[in-house]
């Protein structure tokens, strides 16, 4: 949906830039420290190794799972299935992933770095879709086709010590009043 995405990058890019600038104005330079940069270097280097599952293969599997179960029309059973499939990719295939061990223009390494984030984002999308037992906007549940007033709230994930915690946040209604627009 190129049309939607283009307006979104303009709105949210501006907001993200503004709040990053506000934050940066209030804090001093931070030193990441040698230990944490070394730790990150080790984390990224661990993806290199000639034997293992190609990152592209895992990416293709994520895409196939999301297309089959988490696309336009969703159901509780499909979403549960997707959640367990992503979970097993995370547990059984991701640890065995390896990008080619070259240091120069290594596209496989870029993909390897993206894969864990893709798995996390896929999981959050599925959990949010399972959580919202109604249909609204681009989220359509075949098993819950109606828009329910009690779901007039944002689904939100907050980073916590256990990973990501699912919760909600209130909606602020400004100009457009919520109503059935079919």
């Amino acid at each position, binding site marked *: 949906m190129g049309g939607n995405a283009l307006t979104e990058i303009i709105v949210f890019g501006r907001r993200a830039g503004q709040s990053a600038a506000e934050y940066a104005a209030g804090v001093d330079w931070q030193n990441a420290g040698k230990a944490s940069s070394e730790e990150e270097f080790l984390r990224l280097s661990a993806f290199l190794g000639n034997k293992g599952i*190609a990152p*592209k293969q895992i990416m293709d599997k994520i895409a196939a799972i999301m297309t089959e179960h988490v696309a336009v029309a969703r159901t509780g059973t499909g979403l549960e299935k997707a959640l367990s499939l992503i979970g097993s990719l995370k547990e059984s295939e991701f640890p065995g992933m390896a*990008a*080619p061990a*070259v*240091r*120069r*223009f*290594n*596209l*496989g390494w870029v993909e390897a770095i993206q894969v864990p984030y893709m798995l996390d984002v896929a999981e959050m999308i599925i959990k949010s879709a399972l959580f919202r037992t109604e249909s609204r906007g681009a989220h359509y549940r075949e098993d819950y086709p109606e828009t329910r007033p009690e779901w007039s709230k944002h689904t939100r994930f907050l980073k916590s010590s256990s990973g990501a915690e699912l919760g909600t946040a209130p909606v602020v209604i400004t100009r457009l009043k919520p109503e059935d627009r079919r």
Partner: protein
Amino acid sequence: MSDKPVALKIFRYDPDVDRAPRYEQYQVPWREGLLLLTALKYVRDNFDQTLAFRDYCCGCSWCTSCVMTVDGKGIQTCSRPLRPGESLLVEPMRGFPIIRDLAVDFGVTIASPEGTFKKMHGTVLRKEQHRTEPRP
């Protein structure tokens, strides 16, 4: 006859390891609508995942991220359809320092002074001098 594979002879070079560039041949199964850039991805996903090349940003011949030298001519590979049984020589875009294989460093323009290239790693593939006039 109609579904004969496409033969790609691809320039391979890793300046960290190789003393000189070499060429490798790959056979890519032909299908309707196969594009050169897609065929390169097929080579990477099925034969050698170390193959380096720049993917597209736009996929519709605007961004020129995917330009390479194909049979001696610089073209946008994302918009080059392949015919069954076709044989192509695929090399990095001429006039730019090679990072690895088909990926070049676009940070240096063709008209940059020669010395700029020497500071960069790798070789500049140059068959003929396309543009030698200095930048205005």
